[in-house]
């Protein structure tokens, strides 16, 4: 509840700051925001695109948030996406299976690829105490160059050296009824898988013994060890699940939103996942809504730029400012406390909760 308020305040402050920026460059903030939101939500096909833009972000946001609950900082979502996407693309280009089975195998390939890419840093952390921030960043670049080598080498496109072949219509996550329903948008099945992932992850974190252990390790690994939990196993497992989620994000991006892989690009959704997790306060449902917001900002910015002279980089700026406010949420917490105090003083003493350590 409280985290939700803090996130909402961060968003509003970020939007206000973005408005000030628009004023500063001589545009009207009201017009700017109208076009921004129109661009994202004006008609059914734009809404579809916005949801599709948000889909990989839901996965990477979940990936970062899940690892974070176990006290791990997974910066490697980008690399895990690449490998997950590469594995799924390879399956889609190689095998000729019935569509439902093919999709399933592609998803599994994404899970295995992303999971493997995060398992390695997790194992190093557990076994040799190598910090996961360093190793996941290094894994990002290994993934980058792996794609650079594998795509032109084995899945070269028909015209371009820098792209893989296009997946056949039936081998992508796109599906005719969805495309029709959203009037030609590139929305795809990825969104449904993302929603399922949100539900499963929320369930694991809140309702299972596995979640209980992972959180305990994240909060205090010494106490977890004392209570007989296997700390190292939990670290590896947490990274594995986190990587699998990011891998699925790669599947959604490369075989859903797009239908081919380009080389030489580290997907920005990997790092954006950190921001999404932060704004969503590391809760799966929070991540879902934060990703939707990011989707709106990203997909509306082009329309805004076309309609009035506001550069598309503004969306990034607004996101950055929102993140600043979310990251400094301690300040917002304090403000809320102050506000509550003055209000409760005015209503005389009615607070039900005692001071820390008293009572």
């Amino acid at each position: 509840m409280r985290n939700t308020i803090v996130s909402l305040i961060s968003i509003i402050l970020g939007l206000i700051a973005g408005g000030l920026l628009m004023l500063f460059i001589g545009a009207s903030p009201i017009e700017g925001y109208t076009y921004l939101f129109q661009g994202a939500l004006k008609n059914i096909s734009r809404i579809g695109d916005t949801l599709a833009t948000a889909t990989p972000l839901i996965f990477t946001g979940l990936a970062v948030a899940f690892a974070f609950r176990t006290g791990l900082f997974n910066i490697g979502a980008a690399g895990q996406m690449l490998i997950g996407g590469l594995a799924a693309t390879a399956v889609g280009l190689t095998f000729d299976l019935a569509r439902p089975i093919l999709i399933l195998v592609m998803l599994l390939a994404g899970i295995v690829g992303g999971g493997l890419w995060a398992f390695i840093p997790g194992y190093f952390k557990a076994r040799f105490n190598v910090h996961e921030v360093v190793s996941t960043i290094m894994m990002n670049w290994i993934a980058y160059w792996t794609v650079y080598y594998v795509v032109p080498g084995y899945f070269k496109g028909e015209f371009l050296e820098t792209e893989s072949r296009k997946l056949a219509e039936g081998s992508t996550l796109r599906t005719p009824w969805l495309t029709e329903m959203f009037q030609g948008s590139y929305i795809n099945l990825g969104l449904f898988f993302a929603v399922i992932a949100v539900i499963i992850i929320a369930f694991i974190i809140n309702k299972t013994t596995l979640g209980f252990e992972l959180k305990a390790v994240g909060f205090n690994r010494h106490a977890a060890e004392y209570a007989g939990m296997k700390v190292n196993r939990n670290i590896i497992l947490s990274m594995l699940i986190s990587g699998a989620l990011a891998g699925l994000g790669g599947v959604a991006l490369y075989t859903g939103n797009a239908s081919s892989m380009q080389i030489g690009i580290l997907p920005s959704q990997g790092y954006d996942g950190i921001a999404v997790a932060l704004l969503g306060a590391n809760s799966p449902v929070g991540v879902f809504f934060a990703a939707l917001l990011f989707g709106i900002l990203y997909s509306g910015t082009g329309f805004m730029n076309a309609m009035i002279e506001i550069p598309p980089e503004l969306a990034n700026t607004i996101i950055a400012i929102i993140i600043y406010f979310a990251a400094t949420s301690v300040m917002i917490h304090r403000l809320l406390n102050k506000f509550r105090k003055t209000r409760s003083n005015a209503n005389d003493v009615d607070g039900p909760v005692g001071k820390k350590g008293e009572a």
Partner: protein
Amino acid sequence: MSYVVEMLNIRKEFPGIVANDNITLTLKKGEIHALLGENGAGKSTLMGVLFGMYQPEKGIIKIREKEVKITNPNVANQLGIGMVHQHFKLVENFTVTENIILGSEPLKGMVLDIDKAAKRIAELSKHYGLNVDPHSKIEDISVGMQQRVEIMKMLYREAEVLIFDEPTAVLTPHEIEELMKIMRNLINEGKSIIIITHKLKEIKAVADRCTVIRRGKGIGTVNVKETSTAQMAEMMVGRQVNFKVDKKASTPGEVVLQIDSLSVKNNRKVLGLKNFSVEVRRGEIVGIAGVEGNGQSEIVEAITGLRKVESGKILLKGKEITNIPIRQRIESGIGHIPEDRHRRGLVLDYTLENNMVLEVYNKPPFAKAGLLNGAAIKKYAKGILENFDVRSGEGGASIARTLSGGNQQKAIIGREMELDPDLLIAVQPTRGLDVGSIEYIHKRLIEHRDKGKAVLLVSLELDEVLQLSDRIAIVNNGELIGTVNASETNENEVGLMMAGVSKEGSV
């Protein structure tokens, strides 16, 4: 005689609770004044008011007979009031000097003049007999020494009134003696001291007067010389307190824990425990006595599985457990009240409910097929919390971090007792608790023994070891000096053995 500090009829409310209700405390120049009360009686709040952290709703504060408003700690500092907090506020990788000047750094032109500060600290150290090396790093010095750095910080800022918040809670017996010497030196130099504590023995040893508060109300101020510890305890708790632990003679049964020439490495990768052997039987409490850091932690961590064994054997109920995983040890009947409740004992960001099932969350009825059963957990936790009188803001739903230290400790003890372990390892079980709670915990430990279970007690408080144990094993420098029957020994003998002098013909 003039008063340096007068706090008259202070009242401080927090939402839903009156922390201080009409409390008066006066401090004479050159006295040590003890502020005595149970956990959560309002001692820290009262000192917070004096130190400018809280504003009182009612009441007057006078410093050197002038009425003042202390709006924040800086004002308190300017008035010559300094505070040594229970948890030190030091930067670990700074030197002593750097820590002391932090916030009021002396400058020479544009650059820091560390040498000048270091020189002054060395002088002060000599003057007050603090023996602090201005150039050593905080992380390299002992806890007792760190506390002296905190004291030095106040002296450096020329404080006249020094507040100590439970200064002995983290110290070894020897360090406590040193601290008392230092306090007397400070008084001789004209400083005045308020010491917040619930340890009656220390008040008796060092304080001149004592103000007692109970549940936020001032009970009275007494002269320490003319008041017995029993009287002070009664004022504090509101009823008579039994200091002597009542227990029957033990009736030891079969061996539960057998340790056979155990050697364990310590954190510095050298043997911290050498060839140690001991056994604990059903129906007896075996105490381990020793100065801190002489192998006690290594013994406990080896038994519980937190530390690897180099050589030797550990047997529980006849079965070897030397190398089995921690969880299996818990399941085969080991309960462990850990030394450090924040590091090991609790997940501070978990609710109390979750903390109460920290070792059993995966067993029915708390979990079935990997799914947690919230209702069962809640019920189980509620039972423990009521049984052990754990007081918290929102019952089992409170975050463990928000509880006072004493209540956290009671929650841990409750959790371990509830498992009804065949072997209970209690390390410093009453650290930071008031006499009322100590009495209660001691009773429960004896009860556990009388149920036919084995208890291994590790404590730095020699009194506690002597009173509770049936047999006492004394360690020094990682070696067993000897084992004695508690009924046939005394403080002197055990003290000598703790210093490494072995006894002829020990049991």
